[in-house]
């Protein structure tokens, strides 16, 4: 066995940087576990090499499918398609109903977090969001290799995980609901839940009180045209002295790693991008403070 990459049976670490997978979102980890459950280790290793060498030219999420192009031995790149089984409307209605049971799920999705127990909502329909087995990931490749997954497809597997972290809603999309559609459906479900709730409590009037529309209020300047010109406030006290960020408090610090899947050919690209932004940010902050000190004179 060729052990240049890995110990036998040890999972392949696809972390392209030095830090490993430790700070990856859980769903990326879960995806990698899925891949590592694949039995044909050798093929997997070859695919990994493939991916790292940058043979994957593009990956596109188009509606419910993933389209990719991989440079193989042939002159033209091979075309790879990946897709999951789409949930039908009935399945989705179960999922939506289940998702509505916990406000937290909607709350997390709306603030850009994939809930770690999301599968429990899907369990209601007897379906899953994540494929349970790699076999559930349907695929097609234009290469002559009969085996599925071929190494081109496997190479895509490796890169998909990180692509999920760019946008957690991609998984829903692959299952047949876009972000916008999903959120709209969830809002509808909440209304239904509310209606049930009020029926139970028999006190619907409580919710009706605060929902009368007021006519458009004219802008104050319409009533008092002098306001068109006037501004009499003084500079707010906390803008008097312009202060730098506290340690670890810049937007870049708080936002953390950029959820952007790396091109394997440029293994340091994301780190370089972020560290350059951060060092330039310091320079620009300093310039801003100098400018602020000189201004208002």
């Amino acid at each position, binding site marked *: 066995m060729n052990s240049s990459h890995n110990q036998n049976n040890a999972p392949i670490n696809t972390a392209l940087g030095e830090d490993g997978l430790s700070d990856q979102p859980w769903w990326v980890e879960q995806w990698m576990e899925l891949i590592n459950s694949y039995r044909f280790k050798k093929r997997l290793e070859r695919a990994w090499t493939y991916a790292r060498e940058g043979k994957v030219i593009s990956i596109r999420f188009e509606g419910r499918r993933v389209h990719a192009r991989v440079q193989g031995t042939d002159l033209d790149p091979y075309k790879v398609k990946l897709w999951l089984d789409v949930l039908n409307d009935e399945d989705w209605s179960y999922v939506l109903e289940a998702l509505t049971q916990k*406000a937290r799920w909607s*709350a997390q999705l709306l603030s850009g977090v994939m809930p770690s127990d999301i599968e429990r909502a899907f369990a209601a329909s007897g379906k899953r969001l994540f494929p349970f087995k790699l076999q559930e990931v349907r695929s097609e490749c234009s290469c002559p290799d009969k085996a599925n997954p071929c190494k081109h497809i496997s190479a895509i597997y490796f890169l998909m995980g990180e692509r999920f972290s760019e946008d957690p809603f991609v998984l829903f999309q692959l299952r047949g609901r876009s972000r916008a559609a999903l959120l709209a459906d969830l809002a509808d479900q909440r209304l239904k839940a509310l209606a049930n709730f009020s029926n139970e409590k028999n006190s619907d009037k409580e919710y009706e009180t605060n929902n009368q*529309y007021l006519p458009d209020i004219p802008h104050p300047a319409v009533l008092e045209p002098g306001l068109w010109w006037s501004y009499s406030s003084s500079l707010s*006290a906390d803008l008097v002295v312009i202060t730098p*960020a506290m340690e670890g408090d810049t937007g870049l610090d708080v936002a953390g790693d950029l959820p952007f899947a790396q091109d394997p050919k440029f293994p*340091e690209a994301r780190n370089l991008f972020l560290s350059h932004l951060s060092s330039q940010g310091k320079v620009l902050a300093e310039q801003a403070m100098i400018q602020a000190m000189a201004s208002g004179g």
Partner: protein
Amino acid sequence: MSLLHATWLPAIRTPTSSGRPALLVWADTWRVAAPTGPGDTPAKHPFTLSTEELRTWLSDLGLLPEGIIDATACLTLPSRGIRSSNKTSTTNDLLEPTQKRQLDWTGLPLQAGEPVPQKTQWWPWQVQGLAIEPGYATIWLSKLPLSGDHPDLSDELRWWSHLQRWALSIIARGRWLPQVEFSRGEGYPHRARWVPLLNREDDRRRLEELAARLPLVATCALPWREPPGSRANRTTRLRPEAMRAANPVASCRPRSGRLRVANLLEELVDAQLRKGFQPDLTGLDPLLKEWQQALASDTGVISLEDEKVERLAIASNHWREGVAGRVTPARACLELLTPRQGDDFWDLHFLLQAEADPTLKVSASAAWASGSKTLQLGEIRVENPGEVLLEGLGRALTVFPPLERGLETAIPEAMQLTSTEAFVLVRTAANQLRDVGVGVELPNSLSGGLASRLGLAIKAELIESSRGFTLGESLDWSWELMIGGVSLSLRELEHLGQKRSPLVLHKDVWIELRPNDLKNAQRFCTSDPVLSLDDALRLTATEGDIFITLPVHSFEAGPRLQGVLEQYHQQKAPAPLSAPEGFTGQLRPYQERGLGWLAFLHRFDQGACLADDMGLGKTIQLLAFLQHLKCEKELKRPVLLIAPTSVLTNWKREAIAFTPELKVFEHYGPRRPDTIVSFEKALQDINIVLTSYGLMQRDSELLEIIDWQGVVIDEAQAIKNPSAKQSRAVRDISKSNKTSCFKIALTGTPVENRVSELWALMDFLNPNVLGEEDFFRQRYQLPIERYGDMSSLRDLKARVSPFILRRLKTDKAIISDLPEKVELCEWVGLGKEQIALYRKTVEDTLDIIARSPTGQRHGKVLGLLTRLKQICNHPALALKEKVIDEKFILRSQKLQRLEEILEEIIDTNDRAILFTQFAEWGYLLQAYLQCRWNSEVPFLCGSTSKNERQAMIDRFQEDPRGPQLFVLSLKAGGVGLNLTRASHVFHVDRWWNPAVENQATDRAYRIGQDKRVMVHKFITSGSVEEKIDQMIRDKSRLAEDIIGSGEDWLAGLGVDKLRDLVALEHE
């Protein structure tokens, strides 16, 4: 005068233009214009400066920006409809009848500060200006003043400078993330943007503030668009329909809002970061490379395939979502309630709260009930309230995990927290939640404000025997510990501390104990402190001041102490004092209050600055005060009164008139005593010593030796520069005293608003109140003058306000005390040159008159009188000089005094008209005043054309930034004009007929007017002006003659009588 404006020119993308936004700088000015209306396109704004004029003016102001191009825009402005007099406009004839009817409107755009007509309409106007590209615009905005009224800069420029300062703060704090913006449709490129993050509580509050106060003129522009192909054939006539299509007569709706301001902030932040950012592309993959390059490029355009950009856009958006959500009108809010009796759990309610007004809240159920509809929160509309609430809760979950329990149902409204969780929320999570844009409402006693901290409740009263006027004296007092509004003893505190629970229930109130509380309380108790009147004054001046180790939550003063405190803090004015015995005049009610105030501070041994508006009688109040001291037998030593030379005469006159018992010694002139012995001898039995600032400095050694009872400085702005010799000399004299010496400053300028001058003034009055000069500069002057820091200003005002009394003649309480016209005599002396010239003229001419035949006498006498009056004005006038030089002011005391008074008027933004009977003097005065204040001063005389006259009057009356001073010849301007904008009238020289003067005065005064007019009459003491004035007053013999026949009667006087009349009486 022109006024500079700035408005944002949004990018409108057209096939021919890249559509970059810009800051449009433009200026309007006052001119006469005929009403006009839109034709095919919006009408040209008739008051704007051309771009050439604007460039010149901006360079004069030192504000010419870089990176500018000429630009035109359509600005929507409030306008005044006026029927046009000529209705046959040629452009209108070209229009079809329907359009003609539509565009029939004519009028003029309003200007800032102009009185608003009853009915205002909004119309678009074509405005020319200079467009600054965003990067340079931010540099330019940084240079604008952050505070204060600049006569050339409009209000909205200050709004812009505040917005830019916020942008700088965002950059300094690194509160931004780069983003990729996917094209919004055809014509919009994909762009890389630097986006500010507005999740922090203070940034969100600032957004609301700037949005609520946005002057709409800052965002009322649409770019002017050249129709395609027009550039090439500029000379040929543009097709009107193409212009109309490109620039329809359309107005911007007046909208304001957080979204608009957030966008402007983004533009400023983006422009600056873009300009400064140096890309480094090594090791980047093609996508990140392109993104980084676009972040540094001028336009930010990303040229990659759509799907790649979309990928970047989604990833960068997802990245940002983790830190900051969208800008919405409402946010999620968590409200913590204290446990019910006997319960251990704390209720946490979920609410939706308006960003603009945190008191506007609705329960989560109302948000759920709205579904995807709109929710009305007071006047604020919230779209998709359920999602706004959920998104906020999702964000809250990331910093406050216990929340997870509360979100396990479909439509949660509240949850319960354990006391440990509640403590975490109170102590740390509340701030973190606010930082991610979630509102938190805590019970009052735990809200983290000062009241929720351990502090003191103090009760105090004056000691039985005290009069309450010595600052160092100690008080009878008692205290209790207090927290969250309830009192507790040290033992209770120790007991509660043993509970090892940071949130404890005490007397039915939940309070939070902090680690150092017990230690601080113990230290305070063991220090056995004394409370002095000083401390009491300080602690009651500002809220939450610290006493020893603890903040003071409440201060309860006994009735006697309360009386002293109220007076000291000016909550209650000191009791007024009526005119003392021996004062031969009447005090108006507000003057009695002023006298009471002076006496009050004197008892406290504190210096006082009487800063009443000009004309309210500061001199009289001071003289009454000195007479009051005399009556109380407290005036034992002489008082030194220092004033500008030009008002010394006035002081002497008033002292003689009002306080004849007070002995005045004038320490000026060549024969003043110059040795200690002779000086002390001269001061025997003297009450007031008058001297000038110049002599005070020259004779300082002599003056310092005298043990003054008090030092009074008039026109106290003379010591505004603390390091000037004059200021130091004044301070030295007042400080050199062995025994205590009262200090009073008089000034008519708004002294409390002049931060830089306050220190010198207070250092004279009450040293130490404002600390050392360096400290003062760092603590107050820089923050206030540079940045307009209001909290420092408030603090400063609180510190000095007990010592400054300023009443304005416009105050309601004062107006009722004042007659509608207040006549003020300004007594002035003559300078050396004036005296010599005056004497020579009298001698030479009287001889000639005596020898002249009767027939020619008449003319000669009048000639003499005219010449003497000219000399009193200025020697240059008598000598027929036409040019003014630097020494011009020094040659006339009248002009010096006039300048001093005008300075106060200009400072207080009043307007004044000045009458003279000499056209030549009018020209000289005009030239001098224009040069002195570097601004236009019109002069209206007999040779002014009718059109010019009207333009001058209109500008003075109507132009909000029109001239403040207006010189008129008595004959040409004395009748028929309406100049009611003026609140001061000057009669620079006297006319013999009071009726003529009164008529002129009435130009500024109209019956029923709600303001008061100050009439200043200049009288040169000892000269013919004084004699005539005396005669006019002394109506007994000559009044009829004078009023009946002008100056003619003078010619009939015999030479001896004439000599009496004109001879200079030297005092």
